[in-house]
């Protein structure tokens, strides 16, 4: 199993931790992909199983799956009920996320990506010769980005546990009223780009199959499952899965 760790020094001489992942080590469950596509194993009929098998095989060749994080101290004095402050930056995370961060001493910011390869492949197929296969890649790409997020979260949890600290769940710009414009602040903590992920002027990530966000760390924080009832995304694929 290939594992690559690297420590990256930013221009502010603070450490970011970046890791590469193989598709296999993410252990993505085909059943989850089938469910996201709308089916159960029993109702998943040809040609979709063939498409899924083909896509899983192809994903083993992906070599740009990455995750990075950086842990920084939260400035309690500057933070309020809707925002947090880290270094000289204010993140307007909104009331819901801020509440989840109560008790946090440090914040881990993260960027994870399934990479450019699968994002481009999904897009090309969706717009052209095989939209169904493109959609399968699209769904797997999202699953990869989330699985990298799970790995990064688990890594942080393990290392913080040793120091007697706990972590919160992870939260991303664009959800629960945390405006995506804060992405630029988040990415500035990584020197503007992380894991090859860049932002558009309207704060969108490229490659598309990427996630970013934060995790609260502290002795008194709580890990809460996602509160679907607080979110307006009624048709979210993750609704009530957690």
């Amino acid at each position: 199993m290939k594992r690559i760790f690297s420590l990256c020094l930013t221009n502010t001489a603070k450490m970011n931790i970046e890791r590469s992942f193989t598709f296999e080590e993410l252990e993505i469950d085909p059943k989850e992909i089938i469910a996201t596509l709308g089916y159960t194993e029993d109702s998943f009929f040809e040609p979709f199983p063939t498409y899924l098998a083909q896509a899983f095989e192809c994903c083993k060749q992906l070599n740009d799956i990455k995750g990075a994080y950086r842990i920084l101290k939260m400035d309690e004095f500057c933070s309020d009920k809707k925002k947090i402050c880290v270094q000289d930056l204010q993140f307007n995370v909104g009331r819901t996320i801020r509440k989840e961060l109560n008790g946090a001493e440090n914040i881990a910011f993260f960027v994870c990506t399934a990479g450019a390869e699968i994002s481009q492949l999904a897009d090309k197929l969706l717009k052209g010769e095989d939209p169904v296969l493109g959609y399968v890649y699209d769904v797997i790409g999202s699953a990869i980005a989330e699985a990298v997020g799970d790995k990064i979260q688990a890594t942080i949890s393990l290392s913080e546990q040793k120091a007697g600290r706990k972590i919160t769940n992870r939260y991303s710009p664009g959800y629960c009223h945390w405006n995506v414009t804060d992405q630029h602040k988040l990415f500035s903590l990584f020197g503007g780009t992380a894991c090859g992920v860049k932002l558009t002027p309207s704060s969108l990530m490229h490659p598309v199959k990427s996630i970013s966000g934060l995790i609260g760390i502290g002795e008194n924080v709580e890990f809460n499952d996602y509160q679907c009832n607080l979110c307006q995304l009624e048709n979210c694929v993750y609704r009530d899965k957690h």
Partner: protein
Amino acid sequence: MNELLNKLSNCIEFGKINKAAPFPPQMKGEDGADEITRQALDEGVNAQDVLTEGLMPGMERVGVKFRENKVFVPQVLMSAKAMSTAMVHLKPYFDSGAAKQKGTFIIGTVLGDLHDIGKNLVAMMVEGNGYKVIDLGTDVDTEKYLNALNENPGAVVGLSALLTTTMANMERITKEIKAAAPNTLVAVGGAPVNEEFSKKIGADNYSSDPQAIVEFLNTKTA
């Protein structure tokens, strides 16, 4: 109904693209939308009838089944692919005016959002129900919608979003379109949007699923 058109609507409903396509299994080896559309036109069936009595009924049935969770995105994509394969044969008739689409629908995912699966499904479903669709893509701001409107006067505009935070952009874009082109109908959709929000921002329609926007458009063009 012409037997060929009946077969054609089944090809669209079940996503049978062409004879070589193995999907759906129960239609393996049979002609698909590609061959049947060609055959119908060669046999002198009116191109307009191919559209309205062959393709559209099939796509409408897919839309209804999708709304009722009887089929899912992959099957809709199969149907849309069958539809677009058939439409290639009809394009010369649209170009010459021998066949007419019901109207024009401009659609895009609003600025600050690049989720496009839902938007694409709507575009496919609307096109499959007889409309010309101008797909502006994702991360679209007002100017792009207005440029498309200038090129397609009278078109209905559809705004899509997934992120809760892009709802503010949806509101601003709706108001800017209404200010620049007051008679333009604006329809909104996407996971964070609802009827109440649609009314609040001055949009003319909220659709919770692709078939609903088709039904809205049909009330405006009938």
